[in-house]
């Protein structure tokens, strides 16, 4: 029988660049899930010295589903259900980015009522995404209870959105030139009741978690990202707003009817995990404000612009940017005049946000890396696409 020789163990392509040695303190760790069929599969190769991280490298592609290629095989409308699967937490923003790109290509004007409905459902979806992030992040940090409170509130949103779209998670609600169906009569009152409810819950969130000493200890001064670093990597959304740059696509390049609403864009200058946390907590209020204005000013009228049965944009290309819960989503559509897109490029904000991790993790403790990773709010299906 051969003796067990640990040096003979070979890893894969990603681990090949991480060699053990020269000292005994150096440890190579593959941090991540064990099986490719689990959801949100992110693997990180770490080179550790004791408990300190020397080098970190994310390994991507475990749930790559060829969304961009699929777009080339389907007609324009048939690709819409895919958008709910790219980022399953903020499906509405992706719906919007794709519908918007095709509408821009075709020069379709969306009716006002549809625009307002789009704003309301997208913001509801953003709140549900942030709530889930909040619960899951604290779960990462070892606090179990908060996710129960978050899901309690999130369930109300899912019920409202189910009444509108028929789905609870992977929405496919937008159409080219409008929305799939009209909202029920009690939509506005349910939304207002929800925003009132959420606002009354926020002090409890603050008492339970935000002001908690353990959370503060695990988030403050952890993973400090200065604004230059964020810019260099193209980090967007709450990540860059936590670094002091109040850039938000809803304000910077207003799409839809966002320029009609009055809302505050939260920004913090510290750049640490706590700042990103605070930005998201404040964004819950921002979204509530927008929803209130959108459902109160919901105009009457059609919800679908006149678009032919087969969507056939003219030759050309168009680009559309939307502020998702994780940052700037851009979809670029190129048409060759046929019934199927020639090429669709999806720009996922999570990809850029994850790239910053290599820089942020260097020199930190392993336990802090988990906190940093969580504070970036990664949705892996969106990163892998």
């Amino acid at each position, binding site marked *: 029988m051969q003796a067990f020789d640990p040096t003979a163990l070979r890893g894969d392509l990603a681990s090949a660049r991480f060699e053990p040695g020269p000292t005994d303190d150096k440890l190579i760790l593959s941090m991540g899930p064990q099986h490719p069929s689990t959801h949100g599969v992110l693997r990180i190769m770490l080179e550790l010295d004791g408990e300190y991280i020397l080098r970190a490298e994310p390994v991507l592609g475990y749930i790559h589903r060829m969304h961009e290629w699929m777009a080339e095989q*389907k007609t324009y*409308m*048939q*690709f*819409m*259900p*895919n958008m709910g*699967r790219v980022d399953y937490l903020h499906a509405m923003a992706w719906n919007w980015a794709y519908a918007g790109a095709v509408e821009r290509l075709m020069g379709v004007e969306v009716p006002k009522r549809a625009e307002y409905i789009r704003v309301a459902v997208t913001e509801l979806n953003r709140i549900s995404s942030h709530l889930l992030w909040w619960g899951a992040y604290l779960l990462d940090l070892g606090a179990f*209870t908060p996710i129960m*409170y978050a899901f*309690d509130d999130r*369930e109300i949103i899912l*019920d409202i959105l*189910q*009444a509108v779209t*028929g*789905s609870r998670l*992977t929405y*496919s609600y937008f*159409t080219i030139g409008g929305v*799939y169906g009209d909202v*029920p009569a009690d939509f506005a009152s349910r939304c207002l009741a929800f925003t009132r409810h959420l606002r009354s819950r926020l002090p*409890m969130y603050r*008492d*339970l978690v935000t*002001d*908690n*000493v*353990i959370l503060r200890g695990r988030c403050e001064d952890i993973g400090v990202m200065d604004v230059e670093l964020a810019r260099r990597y193209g980090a967007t959304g709450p990540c860059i707003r936590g670094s002091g740059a109040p850039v938000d696509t809803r304000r910077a390049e207003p799409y839809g009817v966002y320029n009609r609403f009055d809302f505050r864009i939260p920004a913090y200058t510290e750049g640490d995990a706590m700042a990103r946390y605070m930005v998201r907590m404040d964004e819950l209020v921002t979204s509530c404000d927008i929803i209130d204005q959108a459902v109160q000013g919901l105009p009457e009228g059609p919800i679908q612009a006149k678009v032919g*049965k087969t969507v056939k944009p003219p030759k050309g290309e168009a680009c559309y940017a939307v502020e998702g819960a994780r940052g700037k989503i851009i979809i670029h559509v190129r048409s060759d005049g046929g019934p199927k897109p020639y090429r669709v490029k999806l720009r996922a904000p999570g990809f850029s946000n994850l790239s910053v991790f290599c820089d942020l993790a260097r020199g930190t403790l392993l336990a802090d890396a988990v906190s940093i990773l969580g504070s970036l709010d990664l949705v892996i299906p969106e990163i892998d696409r």
Partner: protein
Amino acid sequence: MSVSQLIEEAYTGLKSLVIGLGVTGKALTQPGVTVLYPMEEVERDNLVTYRGHVELIGKDEDPAVPRCVACGACVKACPSNCITILCPVAAKEGEEAGPVKMGPAPQKGSKTPGEFIVDFSLCSLCGQCAKTCPVDSLQFSDNPYMVSFDRKDFRIDLLARLRRMARDEAVAGE
């Protein structure tokens, strides 16, 4: 670390703990929000907006016969190829009428589907089929309780389902 700092730290830690326990205690006294599934079920009004698999809508005058005109538009619109519609193929001229062959809709001279099957295991519940149907013959059912050990059970014969539902309705109406 000086003694006063230690005391201060202990104080803030304890305060956090007490506040946290207060929140938990308050939640403990409130009624539960979870539905304990096999014992309880979600209320009906929450399910009417739920999208189950697609189903056919019967004609107003005869609920056992679908409105469908076997045009095949939904088959083409579906992104996941879940729908199969078969219609009798018209016999060519000069050919003697043998056993009826079935072909994919649309078939010339056939205005009702001979077979209408949806593979729910592929469906992405996008609603494209219901949206394209020219005669509004498709809608979503609201049955969330679909469990099976066999993938074949999710190939649903919608014509049989429609007949069964019409019969049940007739029985209930009597």
